[in-house]
């Protein structure tokens, strides 16, 4: 098996994939060796074609001939601050446009989602009630805590007694709002209880000399006489039952 002309040519140009095997074959096969020598000789003869030399000024002449034909890249140069300003303005305009589009899209989407005005029903008392209940429950919770503190107040401790006046004033304002709502809802039990609580809080809040041992004792007597703490707890229990939660955490103490 002799080497093909293509294999020999690859060997001459150093691109043979198996140089060693080709060399071994050329050493063993006289016919292929002769053909290979002829190929080398022919290719070597073709090396005689050489390019004429060009002098050192050739490049300059080439440039001189083409330079007039070439346009200039980006002739105008803007000051850096102008470029920066335009770039900044472009960004600002793009952002403003984006925000405007988002706003408009939001409006359109909102209008599409909103039901027609004619179909809106006036808010029913049942809708408003949960909010009142929550506020009332909170008020009763605070009131119960205040009453428990009052019940167990140490008459000789000024540090314990003095904050109770501020708390009484705060509760008094909330109690009047709750009582007004109760009157509007025509709830006599709630109104009565809040009346009792109002009277007690008013006395505690408006005591001329502030709360002291004597006034605390007087308030405790009134509280026990009216059963205010008991009423508050009953009301809280009723509200909790209405909300479906029967557990009312006790604030400590008993009546």
């Amino acid at each position, binding site marked *: 098996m002799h080497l093909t*002309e*293509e294999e020999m*040519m*690859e060997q001459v*140009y150093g*691109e043979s994939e198996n140089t060693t095997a080709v060399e071994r074959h050329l050493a063993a096969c006289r016919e292929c060796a002769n053909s290979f020598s002829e*190929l080398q*000789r*022919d*290719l*070597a*003869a*073709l*090396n*005689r*074609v*050489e*390019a*004429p030399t*060009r002098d050192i000024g*050739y*490049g*300059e002449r*080439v*440039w001189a*001939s*083409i*330079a007039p*034909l*070439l*346009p*200039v*890249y*980006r*002739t105008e*140069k803007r000051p850096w601050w102008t470029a920066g300003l335009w770039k900044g303005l472009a960004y600002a305009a793009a952002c403003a446009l984006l925000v405007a589009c988002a706003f408009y899209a939001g409006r359109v989407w909102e209008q599409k989602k909103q039901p027609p005005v004619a179909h809106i029903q006036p808010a029913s008392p049942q809708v408003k009630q949960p909010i009142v209940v929550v506020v009332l429950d909170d008020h009763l919770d605070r009131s119960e805590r205040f009453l428990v503190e009052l019940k167990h107040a140490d008459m000789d401790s000024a540090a314990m007694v003095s904050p109770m006046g501020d708390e009484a004033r705060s509760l008094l304002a909330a109690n009047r709002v709750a009582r007004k709502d109760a009157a509007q809802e025509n709830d006599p039990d709630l109104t009565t209880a809040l009346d009792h609580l109002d009277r007690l809080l008013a006395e505690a809040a408006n005591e001329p000399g502030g709360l002291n041992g004597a006034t605390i004792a007087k308030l405790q007597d009134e509280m026990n006489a009216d059963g205010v703490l008991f009423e508050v707890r009953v009301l809280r229990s009723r509200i909790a039952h209405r909300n479906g939660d029967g557990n009312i955490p006790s604030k400590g103490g008993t009546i």
Partner: protein
Amino acid sequence: MSNVRMDKNDHATIQAVLAGDKEAYGTLVVRHSQTLFRVAFRITGNEADADDVVQEAFLRGYRKLEGFESRANFGTWIYRIAIHCALDRVRHRRGDETSRVGESNDPELDQLQVADQAAGPERLVLSGEIGAIQQAALSSLTATERTAFVLRHMEDCTTAEIGAALGIEPNAAKQAVFRAVQKLRRRLAPLRVAT
């Protein structure tokens, strides 16, 4: 090392050109003209054509300069452009040619003989004319074969590089070189004298 430095210089020059300094392109023209002329001449086989190819290559290069990738080597890039220009020129010229070497029955060509490696001095006096004969033999090739052969045989390009320059697969480039060598050997065989 010097190639790397030149490459860096080329890149800096290109940036200057793209920034509006047209004259900077002259530096690149001066730096690479000789190389382009050499390959253009070898492909076209004609000085006038080679000069035209060099100018055309630099003109094309300038127009495409914005698309030049900074990772590439400008010398290689403009070299390939010159190869394409030369190839176009040869193809264009082929359309105008009516005769080829070997088909002309030129009696002078038939009488000339290629000097053998072991040839005597009396035969070497013909060597000046041998170049012209071989040039004529090269003209008998197709434009692609001639270019592939020149790049392989005279410019020491690998078949992969030839394929990249001509826009063909490496195997197709190898076949083009092979066909060129076969044809050249056939053309020159009658001129060879055995010792």
